[in-house]
């Protein structure tokens, strides 16, 4: 299994690279949303700073007190418009939810995702994936409860222990457990999405049940498939942040832009890598277990072609 997993891992990367148009497309949408959500703030900042010598405090370094002062200006303060950013982020989430069906269809089929095929598959699966999102939120509630319980335990230990370490260690341990649980849930739902698309599964509770059984039987294999891409994702992000914060010339705008956008690009790319690997893994699994599926009893004809028409059709 390890050998085939390694193959899936690299095949996933290959698939993302082969159809990198998907990555670029998502990246540019995200970038455009980012620009639009910050347009008003930028115009205001330009008005205040472009002709002011005091702006040098932000050019030659990044004087934190200048930022606060800008926000405190009596006539026209430079407000951080968090609500605008949030609105555009929610819009992006909806778009991602829509695009996921098309992305998964392309990866499951292993065929070039034409625009027509992509959007047909995206539209076909949208409401199914939306229902899965609702299920996901419900599943995440106990994890949120665990986080709240951790906070209560932390407060209790902090009140009773003279040393800061026990409380810190509890938080660190809880953070690892919660992160692991989040990853497990994500892999489970990723596989449910793959099943929903690959098998044109209409009942999402059934897709979840099948994905759960599949994940239970291949727990470490699927977890490691997801986790190692995540580790690469986190390392690249940390590296990018480190370069941006500690190594770039403070005056540099272009380099900072490139590094920050490279971080977003790799983040999107690695997420699609996870999805491609999972889709390939499932495709291989189907091929290897066609006669005896892992889940039982089979509720529906399970190996229907995906709904998205292939380009040849």
């Amino acid at each position: 299994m390890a050998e085939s997993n390694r193959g899936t891992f690299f095949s996933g990367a290959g698939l993302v690279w082969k159809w990198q148009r998907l990555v670029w497309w998502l990246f540019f949408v995200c970038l455009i949303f980012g620009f639009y959500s910050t347009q008003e703030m930028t115009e205001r900042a330009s008005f205040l700073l472009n002709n002011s010598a005091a702006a040098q405090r932000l050019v030659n370094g990044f004087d934190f007190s200048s930022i606060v002062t800008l926000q405190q200006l009596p006539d026209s303060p430079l407000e951080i418009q968090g609500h605008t950013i949030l609105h555009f982020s929610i819009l992006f989430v909806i778009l991602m939810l829509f695009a996921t069906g098309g992305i998964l269809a392309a990866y499951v089929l292993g065929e070039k995702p034409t625009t027509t095929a992509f959007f047909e598959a995206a539209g076909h699966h949208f409401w199914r994936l939306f229902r899965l999102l609702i299920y996901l939120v419900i599943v995440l509630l106990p994890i949120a409860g665990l986080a709240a319980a951790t906070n209560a335990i932390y407060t209790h230990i902090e009140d009773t222990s003279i040393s800061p370490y026990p409380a810190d260690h509890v938080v660190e341990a809880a953070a690892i457990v919660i992160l692991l649980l989040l990853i497990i849930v994500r892999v489970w739902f990723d596989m449910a999405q793959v099943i929903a698309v690959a098998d044109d599964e209409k009942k999402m509770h059934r897709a979840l049940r099948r994905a759960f059984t599949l994940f239970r039987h291949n727990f470490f294999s699927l977890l490691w498939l997801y986790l190692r891409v995540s580790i690469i994702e986190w390392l690249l992000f940390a590296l990018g942040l480190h370069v941006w914060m500690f190594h770039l010339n403070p005056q540099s705008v272009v380099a900072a832009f490139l590094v920050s956008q490279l971080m977003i690009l790799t983040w999107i790319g690695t997420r699609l890598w996870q999805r491609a690997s999972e889709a390939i893994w499932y495709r291989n699994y189907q091929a290897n277990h066609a006669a005896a599926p892992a889940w039982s009893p089979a509720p529906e004809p399970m190996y229907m072609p995906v709904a998205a028409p292939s380009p040849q059709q």
Partner: protein
Amino acid sequence: MQFIQPDDKNTDDHTVVQITLPKPIAPGASVEFHIVFHDVLPKVVERTGYAHDFDMVGQWFPKVGVWWKNAWNCHQFHANTEFFADFGTFDVKITVPQNEIVGAGGDLVSSATNPDGTKTLTYHSEDVHDFSWTASPSFTVVEDSWTGSQGPVKIHLLISPGHESSSQRYIKAAKGSLQLFDEWYGPYPYDRLTMVDPPHGGADAGGMEYPTLITLGTGVHMPQGVLAPEVVTEHEFGHQYWYGMVATNEFEEAWLDEGINSYTEVKVMDALYGKNTSVLNFPFAQMGESGLQQIGYLADPAKDPISRFAWLFYNNNSYGGITYSKTATMLLTLEKVIGEDTLRQALHTYFMRYRFTHPTGEDFLKTIEEVSGKDLHWYFNQAVYGTQVLDYSLADAHSDPLKWWDAAAHDSKKSDKDEIYRTYVTVVRKGDFQFPVDLEVKFEDHTTATEHWDGQDRWVRYHYDRKTKIESAQIDAHNQITMDRDYFNNSYIEDANPRAAHKLRNIWVFASEWLSQLLAWLT
């Protein structure tokens, strides 16, 4: 004996008690009080109390009011006020379990173990107006010393578990502060300084001053670039001068200790850690003490004058912003009027003249006027006793051909060098605070014009007829008027430079994209 409420007549307030003697005290006679009192320490709040096995014992005994200006001065305890007490000698015996490590604002005279598993420590302290102590079996003791103009000073640092990595940062800040205060303002006369680092969960005991004992504050993973341990050490040490020795009335004129101390905090921290990096020092973000005080002041600059009684401020934010930060920025701005060295000399004179006494704000301001040789009433009336806000703005700056109607003249390339431009620069006083400002105008041919405006009128306009156009105009080019509410409108550069706005946009766009990606994890 009865409770009195001299400040607000709130009869529920039982923080001041008045004792009527059976007979008056004759001139030259004395009376001795033996006061038995019982304390129950609270869970740490307002810089006193216990947390786990840590005890910070401050404001723990009945304090006698101060006979001052021919009357008893004894105020109620208010949320925003600190304290006022007279100088004296303290002989204190503290009995604690034998495993306790004790620090106190006095010299340890003797230590005796008792048969019941306790020990009794005796402390002696002179020329102080308060006495506090701390105890915990979990302290790690770090000893150091510093020698100043009046001999060696023992530094006792009591560090709590998990905070050991901040030990040397505390020590370095304390020794640096001792050195600069000794050089600039006057000698530190005590032979000890006890520094207490409260434990995890006891942070409310941190950041407080008592004579020769200060409480600090840090975290387990305090980054080197966040100079919070240094700032709190310097600030609380500074109170040894502005509160400890120059013992002003913190109820009535809190700015004289907290405000002057915030000013000297700027000077000392900037000297020790860099002008622009004395609060935050990362390659990607910086902040200096001056900036910290400026944003503290600008948060709410106009509700209260500096001189207001501490308990009468509009709210806690106004009290903090005005008392600490406005006073600091007021004194930083005063440097422009009388010079930094003169102000330092004035503080030195003020300290040497009024140490171990209870001076007033008037004493302080008169000392500045005396040392500087200038009448500064115009400034103090606005900055100390008023709520005026200072904001000068460079409203307009542009160059146009002088003979603008002569199209032929300035359409001809040949005559470009000979074209005379009229440059207008308009400075506006947007606030109600009047302050003299200097204007510096730079032209494209690298010539410069400087103007000095008394800042009295609402606006002033200068014009220049030169064979060159304006490059930039700036008021307060050296950023000395720190009270200016908006220093972004102090200048005009002809060639717009969008770099700062682009830097900000980079960060905002990234934050927006990153939030999108985090939320997209759900899909």
